[in-house]
């Protein structure tokens, strides 16, 4: 008996230690690994190539909610900017910049968050208050309204499990494809596993019939299985269209891959589109807030700061490459965890998504990559000088691709 007691105590002690080790290592978070981390070779880089400045009126500020670069029938290039406070869309000639050459009043739209100018007599404005696309004519009169939730009762929130919601960014232009407007939205919070394999986030709005169809699903391996991505920043959808105008390229913030989805069929494929420097990205860990019903805001904010998060993707038709933005992770210790201290990098890929290199531009204090577009001059990224208090200009810093 006297010999067995110490043996039992030892066994219990070992069992406790093993349990502790297992529970310490067994996180409930899901890890998205970057398989090519540190193994990619760069051949190109981006170099600053001047600024472009557009003057702002007293009611408009930098980081406007939405912008669109478009060409008129004569091929002139314009930059249109939504001014949320003055309820106008200001139009600038891109080449000459400076003052706006035109403005479209949109006060008839209650909560404008995005727009698409087909021509001056056909302007679509997304009204977030009613979840609808409003068509305006050249006198800013409402021609038609297209519900994006099939006219369902907005107070009964069950529509949120069937229809996407929209968090528009200028880098995500509304696209025209064969008589349809392509307007991707997103699921806002953690995608419940019960709907993860059927929830479609892209609206296709038929310009002639005003019918709305929904296509394209989240990659189930990442957003399914109830993995916790409980913040619109994690479930956001960035996109562009391929040069043949048949497929969408989707950049999800927490995925190193890109999803290429056919617009006319159910076909899709996944390709690697990550950064050489981005680390694994992990979902929220329910063990960190077990006693609470939802993830605390502070934990979500810290997670967003300390995670590599991808952003917009843009195809450059002049150089036949793709640019993908990355908001780089801040270290967990030793620096102040502020979102705007994150560095902005751009990953460059060729037309087949082969890695060409990546360049760090600066931090989110000075760059606003959600307002970016491509011109023949290069990649335009909104730049806000940290000491700019006068807010007289909307500025884009232009980056040109160079061989290393």
């Amino acid at each position, binding site marked *: 008996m006297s010999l067995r007691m110490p043996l039992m105590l030892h066994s219990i002690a070992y069992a406790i230690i093993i349990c502790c080790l297992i529970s310490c290592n067994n996180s409930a978070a899901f890890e998205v690994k970057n398989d090519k981390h540190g193994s990619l070779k760069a051949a190109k880089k981006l170099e600053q190539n001047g600024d472009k400045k557009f003057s702002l009126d007293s009611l408009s500020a930098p980081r406007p909610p939405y912008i669109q670069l478009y060409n008129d029938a004569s091929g002139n290039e314009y930059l249109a900017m939504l001014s949320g406070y003055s309820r106008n869309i200001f139009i600038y000639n891109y080449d000459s910049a400076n003052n706006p050459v035109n403005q479209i009043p949109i006060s008839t739209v209650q*909560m404008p968050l995005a727009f698409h100018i087909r021509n001056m007599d056909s302007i679509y404005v997304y009204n977030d208050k009613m979840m609808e696309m409003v068509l305006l004519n050249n006198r800013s009169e409402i021609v038609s309204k297209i519900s994006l939730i099939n006219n369902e009762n907005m107070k009964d929130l069950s529509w*949120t499990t069937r229809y996407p919601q929209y968090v528009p960014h200028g880098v995500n232009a509304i696209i025209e494809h064969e008589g349809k407007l392509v307007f991707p939205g997103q699921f806002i919070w953690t995608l419940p596993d019960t709907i993860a394999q059927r929830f479609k986030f892209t609206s296709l709005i038929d310009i002639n019939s005003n019918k709305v169809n929904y296509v394209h699903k989240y990659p189930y391996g990442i957003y399914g299985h109830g993995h916790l991505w409980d913040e619109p920043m994690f479930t956001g959808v960035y996109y562009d269209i391929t040069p043949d105008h048949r497929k969408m390229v989707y950049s999800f913030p927490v995925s190193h891959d890109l999803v290429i989805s056919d617009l006319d069929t159910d076909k899709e494929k996944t390709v690697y589109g990550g950064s050489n420097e981005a680390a694994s990205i992990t979902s929220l860990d329910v063990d960190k807030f077990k006693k*609470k019903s939802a993830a605390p805001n502070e934990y979500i904010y810290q997670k967003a700061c300390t995670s590599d998060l991808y952003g917009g993707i843009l195809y450059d038709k002049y150089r036949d490459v793709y640019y993908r933005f990355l908001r780089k992770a801040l270290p967990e210790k030793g620096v102040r965890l502020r*979102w705007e201290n994150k560095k902005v990098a751009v990953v460059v890929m060729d037309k087949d998504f082969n890695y060409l290199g990546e360049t760090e531009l600066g931090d989110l204090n000075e760059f606003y990559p959600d307002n970016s577009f491509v011109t023949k001059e290069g990649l335009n990224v909104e730049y806000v000088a940290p000491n700019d208090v006068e807010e007289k200009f909307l500025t884009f810093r232009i980056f040109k691709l160079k061989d290393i």
Partner: protein
Amino acid sequence: MKKKIYGALGVAALALAAFLTTNTSSSASDTTLFSLFKINAANAECCSTPINNGRCSSLTGNCYPDPGGANNCDSTKGNC
């Protein structure tokens, strides 16, 4: 001798604990929430009304519908 070693180990453990605690709290206090940064103030901003049917985004400070969730703001856009 043993007491001295145990005593020294105890002091070291206390110092380590104090160091770790200080580190943790300073990093938490450095975290800045809504008041410090709003990415896009154009959506329905977070405000609380008797309707409260949404959740406030930690990063954008905007309120989005969240059926069945821990609601803390009114997502009915423009009511507040």
